[in-house]
């Protein structure tokens, strides 16, 4: 449901929301006390390790585990044969990805696993497993995979949207838009046609996947893991192992980064199966190499763009055909790329086509606004090139074509109140826009959009006898959300922030929660927190009414206390929360408020990014000099954490634009499975990242909150590329803009 709380708008005077109190998990995290996925142990626990395919594509003819099983210290060996069948298509793919069946589909694909008394014994055991592979031809490039005659991964997965005669690696086709493209292009003074390419990148979280599984012979199991969604882990593992969901209790550890890459399972079903067979707890931790080879990077792409513009900057038509490969299974985010590509613009004629393609690469997982940064790179670069070609100001051109409230979006619905124009105007008025630039320096801008989500959410707010509050929720905290929940609860209850403790409960404590993704937590869990607090307030007012002997309707909640209201209510001094809590047992029992909802009404959010770079004409190296993020947050509950999301998304986008890429060899194996050669931004690569938070309230949330976590990664790829183009005089359409590519482009100019 979308909650329509007309009395709640950003005009309300907040006491706590909007301030910057310290986070509750701060001390644990700065002292090393916080427990992450690999920080747990259990008595008798075994070490679990995975055997992985060295081939990019191979039929698995046989697996002989007998010698491994015979090794002293080995307590269980697991292969696909230990798992039953799974009905649901997506879960079946997940199982196949966690443990290969008939074929190994990428370099690093898991084919077997062992549990042993030590790391050394487990490693030895892996060497004793004999796998007979029949290597097959492989394909890792998206366009090559679509070509007729390409090596085929799966037969019969293509769906009805794909025309006859295409490679079986083409799984689906989608199309969005309205109007008449050709007619629109005919009206343009210039039509730009260009093909853009991006390479796969990884979310790059510093914490490798880790879990500790303990399954008893009675079919009950406990699992500790780092994840963005322990309810998702519970449900997926239960389906894969044939367990009832209630029998598996999953506890989420603190998480060392996710960004979408931990919204699925890799080790967990395997660890549970090993534990089941061994009769002991099994701990599994990935190495960095395994993380890069065999978890979920994002798609690589090839995109054809045609955009028509008049010489005064009006876009007459926008077309993009996007081809994304999502690794070895269907499900690349090409549909979201196709929907979001032109979302910032008010266009009479727009069409996007998206193709989902499989290749011999690890199965993609969500990465912060999945699909959108890639599409925005292409469209925002093209718009910039057209604008510059006419000698027009790139911000003016975007303002001229900007979507507003009432615009029909390129992906279909009509926008309600949105903040794009505000971000563009603020950017234009900002001193960064007119700051002087030196030789070999350039400035670029780009816009970005993201949908933001709601989803299943449960919150339970409980009041202790001494009047402190425990808030139980089910969403792992990846960016400081516990602080924001405590703030919203304290705001609603009218009590100090430090009287509220927010706890992320295990799956036994609440029914179901959507994963921490989609920029949903401050929005959806916040909304549920507010409603749970309101329920608790109503109950406390009822208790006060009973004590005073007056009607329930004659009591209101104000400033942390129940007060009689109305002319005939009577003269009673306010009863504070602590006082009501102290007599809870006498007045009916412990006091709580709870709220369960499938939250809808999340507001879309827009951003404009501005970046200055300097290009070294002798080496092609790019230095980022200055960066400013302008983004609409609806209502910033805790501004430090909103700024943090803006800065973190920008940094990942900069890495994606300049250095990060998956490099595959001729043999289809990953050449750079480590942080040395998969180069993410380091402290000396970046300047301070300035942030401007705009607040155009989301009508679908009591405080106006919009999700912020994802939108900030959408503009940087194009903003950086546009800046590099401005600095060097060359246009690059192929990410990353690594020094050799930039240098080659400069030299061939």
């Amino acid at each position, binding site marked *: 449901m979308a909650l329509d709380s007309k009395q709640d708008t950003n005009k309300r005077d907040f006491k706590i929301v909007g301030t*910057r109190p*310290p*986070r509750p*998990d*701060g*001390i644990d*995290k*700065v*002292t*090393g*006390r*916080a*427990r*992450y996925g*690999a*920080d747990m142990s259990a008595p008798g626990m075994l070490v679990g390790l995975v055997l992985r395919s060295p081939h990019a594509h191979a039929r698995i003819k046989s697996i002989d585990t007998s010698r491994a099983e015979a090794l002293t210290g080995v307590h269980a060996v697991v292969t696909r044969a230990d798992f039953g069948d799974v009905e649901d298509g997506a879960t079946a793919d997940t199982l196949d990805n966690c443990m290969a069946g008939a074929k190994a589909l990428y370099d690093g694909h898991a084919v077997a696993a062992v549990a042993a008394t030590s790391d*050394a014994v487990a490693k030895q055991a892996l060497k004793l497993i004999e796998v007979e592979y029949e290597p097959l031809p492989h394909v890792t490039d998206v366009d090559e995979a679509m070509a007729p005659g390409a090596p085929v991964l799966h037969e019969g997965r293509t769906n009805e949207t794909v025309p006859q005669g295409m490679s079986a690696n083409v799984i689906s086709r989608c199309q969005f838009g309205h109007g008449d493209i050709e007619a629109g292009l005919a009206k343009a003074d210039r039509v730009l046609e260009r093909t853009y390419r991006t390479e796969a990148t990884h*979310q*790059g*979280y*510093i*914490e*490798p996947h880790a879990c500790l599984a303990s399954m008893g012979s009675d079919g009950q199991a406990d699992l500790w893991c780092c994840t963005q969604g322990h309810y998702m882990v519970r449900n997926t593992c239960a389906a894969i192992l044939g367990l009832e969901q209630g029998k598996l209790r999953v506890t989420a550890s*603190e*998480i*060392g*980064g*996710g*960004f979408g890459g931990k919204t699925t399972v890799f080790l967990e079903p395997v660890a549970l199966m090993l534990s089941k067979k061994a009769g002991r707890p099994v701990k599994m*931790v990935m*190495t*960095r190499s395994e993380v890069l080879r065999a978890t979920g990077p994002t798609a690589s792409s090839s995109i054809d763009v045609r955009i028509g513009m008049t010489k005064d900057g009006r876009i007459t038509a926008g077309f993009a055909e996007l081809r994304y490969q999502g690794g070895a299974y269907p499900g690349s985010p090409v549909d979201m790329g196709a929907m979001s590509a032109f979302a910032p613009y008010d266009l009479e004629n727009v069409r996007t086509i998206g193709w989902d393609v499989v290749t011999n690469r690890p199965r993609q997982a969500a990465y912060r606004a999945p699909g959108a940064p890639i599409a925005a790179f292409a469209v925002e670069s093209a718009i910039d090139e057209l604008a510059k070609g006419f000698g027009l100001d790139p911000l003016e051109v975007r303002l001229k074509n900007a979507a507003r409230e009432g615009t029909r979006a390129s992906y279909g619905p009509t926008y309600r109140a949105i903040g794009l124009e505000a971000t563009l105007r603020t950017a234009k008025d900002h001193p960064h826009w007119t700051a002087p630039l030196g030789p070999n320096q350039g400035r670029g801008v780009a816009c970005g959009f993201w949908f933001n989500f709601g989803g299943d959410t449960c919150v339970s707010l409980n009041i202790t006898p001494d009047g402190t509050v425990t808030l139980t929720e089910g969403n792992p905290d*990846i*960016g*400081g959300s516990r602080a924001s929940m405590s703030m919203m609860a304290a705001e609603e209850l009218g009590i100090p922030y430090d009287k509220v403790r927010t706890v992320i409960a295990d799956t036994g404590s609440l029914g179901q929660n959507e994963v921490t993704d989609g920029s949903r937590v401050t929005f959806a869990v916040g909304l549920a927190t507010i409603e749970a607090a309101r329920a608790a307030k109503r109950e406390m007012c009822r208790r006060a009414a009973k004590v005073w002997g007056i009607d329930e309707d004659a009591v209101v909640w104000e400033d942390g206390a129940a007060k009689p209201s109305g002319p005939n209510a009577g003269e009673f001094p306010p009863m504070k929360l602590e006082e009501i809590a102290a007599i809870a047992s006498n007045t009916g029992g412990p006091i709580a408020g709870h709220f369960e909802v499938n939250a809808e009404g999340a507001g879309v959010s827009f951003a404009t990014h501005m970046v200055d770079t300097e290009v070294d004409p002798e080496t092609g190296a790019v230095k980022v000099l200055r960066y400013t993020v302008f983004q609409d947050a609806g209502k910033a509950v805790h501004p*430090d*954490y909103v*700024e*943090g999301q803006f*800065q*973190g998304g*920008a*940094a*990942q986008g900069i890495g994606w634009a300049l250095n990060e890429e998956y490099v595959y060899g001729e043999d289809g194996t990953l050449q750079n499975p*480590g*942080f*040395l050669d998969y180069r*993410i*931004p*380091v*402290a*000396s690569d*970046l300047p*301070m*990242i300035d942030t401007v938070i705009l607040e155009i309230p989301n009508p679908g949330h009591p405080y106006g909150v919009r999700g912020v976590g994802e939108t900030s990664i959408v503009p940087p790829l194009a903003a950086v590329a546009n800046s590099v183009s401005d600095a060097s005089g060359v246009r690059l359409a192929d990410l990353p803009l690594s020094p050799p590519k930039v240098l080659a482009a400069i030299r061939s100019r």
Partner: protein
Amino acid sequence: MSKIHVTTTINGDPAEFLCEAGDSLLDVLRDRLSLTGSKEGCGTGDCGACSVTVDGRLVCSCLVLGAEVEGRSVETIEGMAEGETLHPLQRKFIEHAALQCGICTPGILVAARSLLERNPDPTEEEVRYWLAGNLCRCTGYDKIIRAVLAAAAEMREAS
């Protein structure tokens, strides 16, 4: 093959352990001494999440063998606070919201303390280059650098 017996000092306390020849100091800290504050992000010395000091020298503990700390003095994140009193760096990190997921935080705090012991008045650039061996994926480093500079200022004031 028998294990190696090591006698050392960790965060000022005497410590003894047995380890395999090939065990890294990180393995020993985490798995034998239950000091899980130092993290393994890569195992190859590229991310800095395992940073500790050995005889005052900043190192990646994944690149030091457990046996190498015989007779030496090791300082980890667990020794940074003194009882209830946080180190100024730790306080500033919380004040400046210089952490999001926090996994890189122990390594960065150890590295930053090491910097400030050598250079109590670093420039922003010096801080950035000193911390270039500590990867953070969440913050974009902005608030981290501000927190380190703020801690440095407070520590200079106090001395």
